[in-house]
């Protein structure tokens, strides 16, 4: 540690504190405050839980909540696919460097651009359906964007398509830094591919898996606005509306900042709870490790 006069360190953290205060602390305090008020302009009268009751009675909110929760189901899909392809690349399949560059490419493309391109590919008479019809799979040429039953699935497919590149290079980087002796020993002992994956590779990846699950869950809950906005705008109807879009629509399009703030508080709560749960699970797993 460097010796300093006692006030020096505070000088060093002051800019960071000011920025975090402006962008996080003040807004989070205010959003809780706003959620209990009838906001007109910059403030308004206290209305208790009225905004929360209005939100609860709004069926669009229930849809948005359900859709955000459903998107979390994409996390295990992304996890399994990422690990699977990372392991294939790790085994130095022929051309693995080229495959790595290709599979990571979507992550470089901006989400709004990906969303717009996807909205043409998945259109009723778009490229996907034209290809399906041309190869005789007419039954699969569905109304990906126009059907209330499919629009959320389509959004999820696009999200997985782009985000999986990050998962693959993340797990690959971890595998490349792994000690190969154990794997070699397992191979010499005659362990098959699945056994090596299950007993040698997965335990090594555990920390990275936890990290990835946290990052991917946050993405699904709170970072998908740009996808939904560019692919379906939440429609048709409310069939692909998620919490983020609901907050944006209520707060800025419908000028109901009170209701938007109430949902923001709910979203913040949901994020904090899910992360806390993950950490509890992790702490428990580590304790069991020590005992075993």
């Amino acid at each position, binding site marked *: *540690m*460097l010796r*300093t006069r006692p006030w*020096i*360190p505070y000088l*060093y*953290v002051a800019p*960071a504190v000011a*920025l*975090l205060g402006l*962008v*996080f602390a003040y*807004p989070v305090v205010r*959003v809780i405050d*706003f959620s209990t008020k009838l*906001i007109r302009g910059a403030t308004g009268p206290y209305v208790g839980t009225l905004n929360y009751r209005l939100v609860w009675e709004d069926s669009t909110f229930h849809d948005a909540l359900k859709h955000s929760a459903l998107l979390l189901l994409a996390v295990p899909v992304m996890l399994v696919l990422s690990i699977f*392809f990372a392991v*294939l690349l790790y*085994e130095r*399949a*022929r*051309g693995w460097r080229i*495959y790595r560059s290709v599979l*990571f*490419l979507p*992550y*470089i*493309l*901006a*989400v709004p651009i990906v969303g*717009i*391109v996807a909205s*043409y590919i998945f259109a009723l008479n778009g*490229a996907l359906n*034209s290809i399906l019809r041309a190869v005789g799979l007419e039954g699969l040429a569905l109304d990906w964007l126009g059907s209330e039953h499919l629009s959320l699935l389509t959004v999820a497919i696009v999200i997985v*398509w782009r985000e999986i*590149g990050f998962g693959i*290079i*993340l797990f690959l*980087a*971890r595998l490349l*830094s792994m000690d190969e002796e154990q794997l070699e020993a397992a191979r010499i002992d005659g362990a098959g*591919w699945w056994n090596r994956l299950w007993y040698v590779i997965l335990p090594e990846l555990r920390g990275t898996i936890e990290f990835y699950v946290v990052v991917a869950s946050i993405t699904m809950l*709170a970072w998908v*606005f*740009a996808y939904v*906005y*560019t692919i379906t705008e939440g429609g048709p109807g409310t069939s692909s509306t998620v*919490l*983020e879009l609901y*907050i*944006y629509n209520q*707060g*800025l399009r419908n000028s109901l*900042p009170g209701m*938007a703030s109430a949902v*923001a508080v709910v*979203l*913040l709560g949901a*994020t904090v709870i899910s992360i806390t749960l993950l950490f509890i699970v992790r702490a428990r797993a580590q304790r069991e490790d020590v005992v075993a």
Partner: protein
Amino acid sequence: MTSRVRAGRVARQAVLLLMALLTLYPVWFMVSTAFKTQHQYLHNPYAVPWPLSVANFGDAIHGGTFFLWFKNSAILTLGSVILSTLAAALAAFAIARMEWLGRSVFLAISTALMIVPPVVMLMPLFILFTNLNLVSTYQGVILIYAGLTLPFSIYMLTNFFRSIPHELLESAVTDGARHFAILWRIVLPLSAPALVTLVVVNGLWVWNELLIALVFLPSDNLKTLMVGVTVFQSRYNLNVPVTMAGMLLASVPMLLVYLFGQRFFIRGLTAGAVKG
């Protein structure tokens, strides 16, 4: 080689090839459609574009203000990455190298902020910035982006600064260097890998951000590239080839950066996560 091993290899290649095709198809769709005429596209949306038509790019450049959007995005990205990195370097230096009350609490809170979704802060920030006349200004949005990327920057730099051997700083102290000089002349030059990571991760995030840019930069002459492409898309909605030409133009900067700096991208994005 046994036939079972060979079958495994073939299966592996088949799976990887299929995945590569699925990954590349949307990119191919964007690129190929951009070179088609409207007639060619409507006739067959997936055929190879032949003869090549480059008129779409002229229409796209004419119909959108790509250079303006590009400039706005570049200013915001540069400004917020610099501000975030500077504020984080100062804070991380104090956390990693100085003794003070509240040090670990500050780091814990700052790190926890990484999970707070930006949309939570949207309404209060918008109302505050409206009152401060910061809506539709570069400065306002640079402050927001720098603040949103700060927790990750602090976390990353603190870890890195802690790993720098103490002796390197000790000798500078005995030479009488001031603390700021130690940070500037010794610590930061040694932290190049961490700084590259920050520039890549934060720069990519700011460049691609849509929600904040949409809400805080509504005026036409301040729109970012990401907001610009959504405006462009709704304007040319029915002319798919021109829309795709616009999307391709908008992707060029990042594709070039990726092409020439792939190593930094991959290393930057995985650093910090790969520690077991």
